């Protein structure tokens, strides 16, 4: 698989940063638009309020002039006064029957409402006047219409300035966001790149490289240290495989040689009866059993048997094994005592556990002389179950106790007793699968095998062996 350089813009971090910036700008835009409309509205409301005030004053004048029959006159005066005091943005109109009586607007359709319309600019209009007004009008009396409005230039002006300001803000934000996004994603991508580079260097053969961990205790460090743990595990598995291959090659050569010898003898002496052939078949069976056990160990170590796990009572399994073996042990001259506390609930594979305990009992029987008693016990110790299989035989000296777990290991003394030497390796594999610890102790005298299993409340899936 070839890897190419990924452009910054293709990275996931940049994409995420861009999305974030986009969302941020979007919300800013929305916010600014709201501000715009609110301010705009406020301006116009203000203008309208002024117009209404003026219109109210005109009405008042009209009403006041009524007793003297000078309503129209009063109103006109009011308008003229206002016009004198105003700038050309103020727009007034008083019309009677559609004919202008006062004001600086031409006659218009009489409507009692808020009106927004275009109007012809006046000669004295200030520079920048927009030609559009907002105002309000009402009927003072049948046929008498008054209207007050304001040019919208001020509002327009404010609106224009707002738009400019907001655009500048948005642009600035955009630039800063992009720059910030680039900087942040750069640093993140660099971190990821360093992880990738380390992995590639490991794949290229520098098997002891590890990902640098910054100690920041964040998710990147966690990723890095998890990958490092995985690499350590892989290393140890590979080492195990190397060791196993060596062991297998070494230790299978002997029985295979025996087999070949027997068959050769049978060939040399075809009339020698079926003895040699029977023995050869027996040798084959032994080899086949050895391979089957090796395969079983490999399956267990690879965790392939995890599917068989269920909630079981360890005491039941152990009792089953003991009742199975009692007659055979009895015949072989071993008295068996069992002290098993009930109710040791845990997560386990009953078939494998059965095999484990059977293994230990078989070992105890085979490696001790007639008359040696064997004691089996199981009890709860806190959150664990402690199982022991103890014999009062020769025992195993301290320096050998680690070695016996290796596949095919046979102590010199035991080389002549039957057995493939796989028993304890299988036992250890099964124990590991259950998250249990297996240890050999001095029974003073004899050997005591001690297993400690986690019970259900405390049970978790076993971690990769350290």
């Amino acid at each position, binding site marked *: 698989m070839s890897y190419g350089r990924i452009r910054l813009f293709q990275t996931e971090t940049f994409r995420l940063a861009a999305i974030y910036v986009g969302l941020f700008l979007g919300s800013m835009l929305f916010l600014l638009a709201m501000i715009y409309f609110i301010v705009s509205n406020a301006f116009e409301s203000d203008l309208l309020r002024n117009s209404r005030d003026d219109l109210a004053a005109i009405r008042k004048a009209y009403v006041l002039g009524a007793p003297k029959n000078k309503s129209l006159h009063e109103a006109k005066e009011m308008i003229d006064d206002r016009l004198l005091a105003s700038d050309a943005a103020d727009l007034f109109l008083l019309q009677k029957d559609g004919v202008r009586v006062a004001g600086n607007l031409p006659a218009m359709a009489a409507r009692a409402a808020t009106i927004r319309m275009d109007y012809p600019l006046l000669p004295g209009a200030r520079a920048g006047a927009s030609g559009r007004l907002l105002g309000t009008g009402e009927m003072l009396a049948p046929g008498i219409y008054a209207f007050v409005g304001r040019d919208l230039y001020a509002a327009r002006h404010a609106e224009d300035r707002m738009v400019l300001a907001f655009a500048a803000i948005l642009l600035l934000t955009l630039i800063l966001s992009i720059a910030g996004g680039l900087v942040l994603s750069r640093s993140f991508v660099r971190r990821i790149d360093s992880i990738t580079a380390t992995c590639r260097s490991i794949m290229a053969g520098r098997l002891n490289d590890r990902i640098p961990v910054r100690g920041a205790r964040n998710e990147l460090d966690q990723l890095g240290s998890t990958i490092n743990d995985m690499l350590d595990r892989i290393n140890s598995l590979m080492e195990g495989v190397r060791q196993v291959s060596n062991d297998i090659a070494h230790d299978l050569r002997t029985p295979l040689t025996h087999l070949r010898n027997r068959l050769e003898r049978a060939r040399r002496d075809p009339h020698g009866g079926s003895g040699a052939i029977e023995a050869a078949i027996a040798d084959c069976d032994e080899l086949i059993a050895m391979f089957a056990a090796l395969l079983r160990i490999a399956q267990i170590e690879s965790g392939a048997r995890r599917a068989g796990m269920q909630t079981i009572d360890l005491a039941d399994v152990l009792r089953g094994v003991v009742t199975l073996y009692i007659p*055979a042990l009895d015949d072989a001259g071993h008295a068996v005592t069992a002290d098993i506390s009930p109710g040791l609930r845990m997560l386990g594979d009953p078939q494998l556990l059965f095999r484990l305990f059977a293994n230990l009992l*078989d070992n105890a*029987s085979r490696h001790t002389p007639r008359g040696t008693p064997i004691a089996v016990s199981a009890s709860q110790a806190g959150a664990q179950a402690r199982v022991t299989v103890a014999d009062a035989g020769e025992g195993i000296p301290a320096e050998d106790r680690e070695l016996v777990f290796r596949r095919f290991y046979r102590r010199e003394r035991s080389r002549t007793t039957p057995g493939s030497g796989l028993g304890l390796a299988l036992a250890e594999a099964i124990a590991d699968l259950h998250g249990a610890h297996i240890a050999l102790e001095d029974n003073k005298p004899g050997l005591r095998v001690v297993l400690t299993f986690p019970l259900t409340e405390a049970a978790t899936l076993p971690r990769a062996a350290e």
Partner: protein
Amino acid sequence: MLIEDDTETALYVTEGLQQLGHIVAWASTGPDGYFQASHNDHEVIIADRMLPGMDGLTLVKNLRRAGVLTPVLFLTTMDDLNARVEGLEGGGDDYLTKPFAMAELVARVNALTRRSQHLATMAQTRLAVADLELDLLSRTVSRAGKAIELQAQEFRLLEFLMQNSGKIVTRTMLLEHVWDLDFDPGTTVLESHMSRLRAKVDRGFDCELIQTMRGYGYVIRPN
């Protein structure tokens, strides 16, 4: 009916069974085997799990769906217990891993044949061989009218022998059916149980019902 694509194994099995008087039909591919198995009547079907064209498990599932009730013995190199359970749940009746001894194959094939008769005996609650009687409901055993005290394991052992009375059962079959073991727990375990059982069942009687067939297994039958 043998469905096996490896010629060596096929010849081995065919010769072994023919020597004992069985007639063996042989197909070497999945579809071929399915065709023959579904169109002809056989006493037992021996099928390899790995077959070209249609794997053994699918073949048997299809046969069962087509209503073929012939007992099936699976052969396989797959040693995985999960594969075994899969095979038995998929419609197989027994499971044997290669390499196997001919005696083992023969014993299991015999146990599967005459299954209809076997089913009839399985529906019975009382088994009998000569003057030995076993009552499945009350879990009691008696010979010539006298009661015999058996432990739980001994009872199950005797039950299995009597259910296959007259047929040889191998060590592995006994270990599987009585203790649900998939491995050999050591040479003398079964023998010790057997000798205690025989002491209770046969001692003091003229006729030894439980017999050892060296190199093959055990059988219970009147002499």
